[in-house]
């Protein structure tokens, strides 16, 4: 096996829950609870889950935007959580983040050309005289025009702003891009444009993506491997076609059957889950999904299922699968 670009082993991120005047810690929200991911260069790993499943926290903890609680994150073999701040800073241009909401990710008073070029100068990656040329290149790669360089964010539509967000990540020539719900705020016709932009850029620049999304149809389109999260834990990972052809975990099955398909009068067998996602501060015992699982048996409430290989790199954490 070639060297992984990113290796996440048993990553945990707990947020303390405090109470009272003195801020005593009374418990923990286990936002990310023992997650392992391996990304080969050039692949796109899709991380799916519903709100509160911890998928965004995984992305942020990998980039060390929040400190981990336990586990390790290796980028090209280097454990990034052991690096000093200055070493970390040198590594930052290699891994970039694209946010969901391009409206709030851009400073309204900074011209987009400066916003895109800023990081190059900050990291001293190129002399000031060359920045404009590189910004123009990045704009063009993202489907924007050269005259956009001196405009302000409010002059752009949502789709264009997301292109600016992508250009800003791209200009640093990163190896890894973590995209956190990058198309969720966009209309369908614009969403298709941005999805195509992601795949084109991957082909031309050999990028590796960690694509975080709640939308399974988008993930199916873009990703080569997919991991499904529920309440901070990975419940299933598999290659894309394998996961969609033969989902093993009941949660994955329910998710897949819940996505509305634009074919009228299509009769589908739907697994409608009962109830809401439990609070991550007080997750259910055993398998965290057992409270909503239509197939749960006694052992599910008692024992935590092992995340194991069900054959051919299809991993699942379920007593019944």
């Amino acid at each position, binding site marked *: 096996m070639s060297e992984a670009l990113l290796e996440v082993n048993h990553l945990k991120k707990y947020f303390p829950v405090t109470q009272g005047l003195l801020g005593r810690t009374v418990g923990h929200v286990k936002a990310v609870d023992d997650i392992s991911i391996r990304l080969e260069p050039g692949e796109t790993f899709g991380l799916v889950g519903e709100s509160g499943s911890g998928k965004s926290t995984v992305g942020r903890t990998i980039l060390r935007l929040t400190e981990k609680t336990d586990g390790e994150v290796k980028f090209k073999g280097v454990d990034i959580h052991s690096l000093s701040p200055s070493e970390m800073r040198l590594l930052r241009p290699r891994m970039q983040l694209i946010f969901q909401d391009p409206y709030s990710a851009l400073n309204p008073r900074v011209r987009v050309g400066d916003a895109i070029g800023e990081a190059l100068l900050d990291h001293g990656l190129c002399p000031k005289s060359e920045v404009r040329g590189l910004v123009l290149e990045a704009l063009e790669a993202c489907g924007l025009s050269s005259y956009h360089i001196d405009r302000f964010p409010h002059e752009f539509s949502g789709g264009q702003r997301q292109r600016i967000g992508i250009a800003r990540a791209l200009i640093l020539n990163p190896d890894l891009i973590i995209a956190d719900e990058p198309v969720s705020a966009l209309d369908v016709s614009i969403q298709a444009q941005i999805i195509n932009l992601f795949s084109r850029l991957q082909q031309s620049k050999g990028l590796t993506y960690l694509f975080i999304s*709640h939308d399974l149809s988008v993930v199916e389109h873009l990703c080569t491997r997919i991991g499904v999260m529920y309440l901070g834990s990975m419940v299933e990972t598999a290659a894309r076609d394998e996961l969609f052809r033969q989902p093993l975990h009941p949660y994955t099955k329910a998710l897949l059957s819940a996505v509305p*398909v634009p074919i*009228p009068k299509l009769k589908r067998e739907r697994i409608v889950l009962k109830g809401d996602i439990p609070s991550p501060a007080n997750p259910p015992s055993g398998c965290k999904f057992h409270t909503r699982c239509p197939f749960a048996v006694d052992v599910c409430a008692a024992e935590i299922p092992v995340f194991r290989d069900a054959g051919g790199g299809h991993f699942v954490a379920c007593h019944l699968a």
Partner: protein
Amino acid sequence: MKEIMKIDGLSTVFFTDEGKVRAVDDISFRVREGETVCIVGESGCGKSVTAMSIMGLVEEPGGKVSGGSIDFLGEDLLRLDKNSLRAIRGHEIAMIFQEPMSSLNPVIKIGEQIMEPLIVHQKMKKKAARQRAVELISQVGISRAEQIADSYPHELSGGMLQRIMIAIAISCSPKLLIADEPTTALDVTIQAQILDMLREFKESSGMSMMLITHDLGVVAEMADYVIVMYSGKIVEEGEVVQLFQNPKHPYTRGLLKSKPVMGQRQDELYSIPGQVPNPLELASSCYFHDRCEHCMPVCRTRHPGLKEVGGGQKAACWLYEEAEVHV
């Protein structure tokens, strides 16, 4: 089937510093008894403003309904005085909004918010209303109804709040339910629950529904009749199966092709080039012409009217007006 609402030539404008915006521009459609009509379109196409106009929620001086009529069971909602409109709103026509969190009053208990329309419209006594409220809460699939009735909105999750909104909306057995993106803010598994519930209520009570959404998957699942809007105009409408199988307007086709569909992966998604025109700069052309692959000279100069294109389907596109195009 009996028509319960008939909208004719409805136009709504907003006044901004830069000029007048025609958010809804001369649209007509009808909703029949027991039917679900879906209005689909992207942000800014006027689908929500249509709903707001029906409910009388467009207020001057910001904007106003500038023309047309909204005939609801024989009465023109636009000509009604405030009190008569109030008697219909929340009673015979109910509405559910996208954001349940911001539609409920944060400082009033859930139960009391459900009781309000019952007391106002159905003239129920407080005690009876309370009992009915608890029944409604369990009817929308929430357990511990008594306890929930005494809690505040912030104590419930988004999915539960949307159920409460539905409970309020159906409390007076409305003839028409307007749901504006009711599941957009919710997770897919919760969305499936809410859509199932709406469908069940519609079937058991025989009410009509006007569902506004941007999600073609939701449309396919819920609609009997579909209206596609673009830049304030209806560009296509038709019965759901027909519209999905045989879309006529290039915009509808583009929308259907550009949505990634589970189980039908393609290497590259079709995408409609460009973006929605600025609503301040709409000229007398087809508003879709600069994004359309079939654009003809006539498309740049005149706006096409909505015409029958066969099978009860209508489209506003010069492609289907042969006589005028090809002379």
